[in-house]
Every structure is written in structure tokens, then in C-alpha cells.
């Protein structure tokens, strides 16, 4: 095992310096949160979805590193104007590709961003009490990873609480 400085590429640096689609959306159709601050990684996605199930607007807010900010931002760019069904097909690998590659220790940032997107889409249908045939019942890889990270955070913070009471 060795350490290297994080060799962020030009695209990530640009999205970190000037994130696209940043900020809270007051008229969002759906909002989804993923991650946990104790892991140093937390995102909120806001989607504005019209009656034709097209994502008209997408924005984000993020507590996290440069990779977290860049991947969240690129996801909002990728899905803007897409219908939900196509947006659902977004994979973490396509996100990593879209930002021009990520250091492997930062893959989880891309995974979390997609996890948040898929969670938002599920919430959208749950609110409408419909379940389209293409939407799998079982959680996708990215959603499972987001959940795992959140569980891990709970374990960590409980452990710290225990130690605090010692």
C-alpha cells in the first residue's frame, strides 16, 4: 500500500471550481439524500420532473471532497432533459467516464451520486404510488452501496458514542 496525491484531472478540477447545477431547488418535484457526514460524503439531489416524466431541471448540494462535488454535478448534467427511464440507466461507471476518470479511492463518490439519483427516482414513483415495469424491485448496486455507507456511518457514530460514555 502506498499513498499518492490525488491526481484529479482537468474536468474534475473545473467542476470543483465551477460546479454546474449547484444549489437548492425550491420547486423540486423530488428530493433525495444519500451518504452521511461522518463518512465525509453526503449529497442532496433535486429533480424537477414534468408530466411527460422528463427531468426538466436537476440540481445538487454536497458535503464532500472535490470528487464528490464533481460527480454530483456531472450526474445533474447527464440527466437533464432525459426521461426518467433513461436516467435510471445511468451507472457509476458512466459517471466516472464522464468526469474523465477518478482515482480508485474516489470511486465511491461516483457510486454515491448514482445511488442518490436512483433513490430520487424511486421516491418519485413511491409518491405517485405507481411502479413501472422497468423499475427493478431489488436495489441496484449503487443504492446498496449508498445504504451500506450509511449503515457504516451509524456503526461508527454509535461506537464513538459508546467511547464517549466510557
Amino acid at each position, binding site marked *: 500500500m502506498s499513498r*499518492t*496525491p*490525488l*491526481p*484529479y*484531472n*482537468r474536468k474534475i*478540477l473545473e467542476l*470543483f*471550481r465551477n*460546479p454546474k447545477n*449547484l*444549489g*437548492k431547488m425550491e420547486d423540486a418535484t423530488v428530493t433525495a*439524500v444519500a451518504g*452521511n*457526514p*461522518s*463518512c*465525509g*460524503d*453526503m*449529497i*442532496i439531489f433535486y429533480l424537477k420532473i414534468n408530466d411527460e416524466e422528463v427531468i426538466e431541471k436537476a440540481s445538487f*448540494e*454536497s*458535503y*464532500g*471532497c*472535490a470528487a*464528490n*462535488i464533481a460527480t454530483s454535478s456531472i450526474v445533474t448534467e447527464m440527466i437533464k432533459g432525459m426521461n426518467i427511464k433513461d436516467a435510471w440507466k445511468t451507472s457509476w461507471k458512466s459517471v466516472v467516464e464522464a468526469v474523465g476518470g477518478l482515482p*480508485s*479511492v*474516489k*470511486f*465511491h463518490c461516483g457510486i454515491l451520486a448514482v445511488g442518490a439519483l436512483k433513490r430520487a427516482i424511486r421516491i418519485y414513483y413511491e409518491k405517485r404510488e405507481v411502479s413501472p415495469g422497468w423499475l427493478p424491485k431489488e436495489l441496484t448496486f449503487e443504492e446498496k452501496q449508498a445504504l451500506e*455507507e450509511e449503515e*457504516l*456511518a451509524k456503526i*461508527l*457514530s454509535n461506537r*464513538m458514542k459508546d467511547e*464517549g460514555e466510557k
Partner: protein
Amino acid sequence: MIENIRELLKAHEGLRREVYLDIENSSIIPKEVVDTMLPYFNQHAYGNPTLTHKPGWEAYEAIMKASQEIAMFSGCKTLEEVNFTPGETEANNLALMGTAFSMTGEGKKIVISEIEPLSVLHVANLLQKHGFTVVKVPVNEEGLINLEKLRETVDKETILVSLSTVNHEIGTIEPVKEALEIVKDKNPKTIFHTDASDAYGKTAFNMKDLNVDLATISSYKILGPRGTAALCVKEGVTIKRIIEGQIGTQKLWPGIENTPLIVGFAKASELAFHNFEENVNHMRRLRDKLIDGVTAKISDVKLNGPENDRRAPDNVNISFLKCEGEALTIELSLNGVYVSSGSACTRRLLQPSHVLVAIGRKFALAHGSILMKVTRYHTEEDVDYVLEVILKAVGRIRGIVGSVEVDSHV
């Protein structure tokens, strides 16, 4: 990867000012030290100091002179007490393992504080895997060791206690003298080591006054070259070598001595101790200007470690709530302010600094910590610039965080 790094460097072009405050992790070497070292690479004393020729004798003379100077500045009784190693990491490894190897039959217990640097903590953990028992004594919210717990912990089985003189991350000046008395009272045979890397040249650290058995002193932390440090071993204390090979002038570290770096270490010591009071007061003034400026101008911040005289004169460590440390260090760098953050990203999650966790900082605060150390070369204008840049950077990063709820209690 190298292409990406080049792009990152290009993004720094045209900076108005640059201020390097990451003395914890490496340092800028002053010109006087560089100039002193240069002739030793190719003009003078380039021989092996154990060999019988002129360049060898010259090297021997240079190393002995450096040892003598460092012995004087660190309060060692003789130059024999100064043992050069290739760095603080090596000196701390030597102190712990060298003691463990030499105290066979005396016991198996090693006691350290919870906030020791990794070159003590990880070595203790390694020794634990090889049959030693390691006890980590807790510290309070300011990082001060719990002396009562230390007293309870040290027993007849304890071969070694290691407690830093000054904590490397949060600048806590530890009660080493009291700790030493307690330890020797409980077990006179216990070897007492202190990592004095952040104390030597910056505080009143002195081997003679402190009377510890082993002390690590650093070159780069007093702006000397990296690649050299020393373990001071009190007369009468014997520890074992931990690596083997051709023995040179350094009885505890085999291999060929790096004469230019050792000479640079001595020169850096001389500069640190020249006008010592003035240097320390200067650092203290800039330290407080930085701390006061940040806490006055930015909300939701917390100083890590104690204040005033109980804190190392150069150390500033502040947690910014709602600010992830890595994002903040990059933003600061893009604006010419070079610092480090306490948390390091691993595959899945951000690993908070063990020091900040030990003083009770919750993750959300630990992740937003920034460590800075000032030197005698920094100016008031540098600090004004740093404050201006930090204020903007924290504002921008917090703007990205927006309404994400980052609770200081998690």
C-alpha cells in the same frame, strides 16, 4: 496521472502570494541552511567518515562537530548521546523496537498515549502483534495525558512509556516531567521515550532538565533538511539496533552517514536557537493572529488543542463545521495557501485523525480540520493573506454544502 498533476499545477499559475504552512509534513529549507550543506555534496567531506583518507576524516570531523552542536542545543551531556537516524519515523521506530529488543525478560508491557504520532502508534501496534501488550492512556479534551491513568497503568511489567513532549497535530505541551516522575516512581527500570520533534527548537525542551531516557528530535520540523533526525539516548541507557549492516560512526544506525544532511540539521538547530526567545515570540504572535482572525471572522469553527502558553508556539489546528477538509485544502491551494487536513480518504470513508477522535471531536468536526504551523520566516502580511483566503474558501465550500445537514454531534 502525471498529466493530471501537471494540469493541477497549471491551475496555480498567476498566484498573488504563496504561503506554505504545512510544516507538519515537510518544510521549506532556508537559504542559509542550503548554502551550508552544498559544499558537503561535492567539495568537502564527501568521504565515508569511518575510512582512513582525507575526505573520510573530513566527514568524521563534520559529523562530530554537528553532533557536538546538536548535543549542546538539545541538552545532551555528551555528543555520544546524539544518534543520527534517517528521520523521525526511524528514530521513533528505533526507540520503541530497540527498547523492546533490549528489555527481554523485564516485561512485555508498552504504554503510550492515545495521541502519539503514527511512527509510535503503528510501531506499538506492530509490537503487540509480536507478543507485547500495549496500553494507550487517554487524554482530555485539550489533549493532556491523564496522569492518574498513567499511574494506574505502569507496573513491574512495563518496559517502555512513550509520550510526546508536544503533540504534533494539536500542539498540546504534555506534562512530560510529571509523567516521568510517575513512571520512574512506579518502575525505575521502565525506559521513558519522548518524541520531541515538535518541541526541539520551539519550546524549552532540554534533555538534561527533562532527564528522559530517549528523545526523538527532528531536522525538518526546525526547517532543516528531511532525511535526518536524531534519537538522544541518555548516558547509561542501552537499547538495541533494529537494522543491521556495516556499522559506521552511529552505533544505533548502520549504513553510510549522510554528511550534508547532518551538517544541515546542525545549521538549522543553530538558526532556531539563535535569538530563540525572539523567534518563539514571533511565532506565537502569528499563531494567535491566525487563530483570533479565523475565530472572529468565521462561524462554526473550533480550535483543537489548548490555548496560549499551554500550546506549541507554532501550531494552529482549527475545525470548520460544514467544510470537508480535502475540498478545503484544494481550494486553499488554488489560492496559494498550503495546509493539510486531519482526515484521509480511504476506499469507502474518510478516516478522521486519531488525535482529534481521542480529544472527543465528532466526525463532522474532525473531517473539517486544518493544520497549520507558522515559522520565524512568516510575516504579518502572510497571515493577513491567509486569513483573507481562508474566509473566502470556507465561504465557497459552505456554499456548495448549502442545506445539507452536517450536525456537529455526529
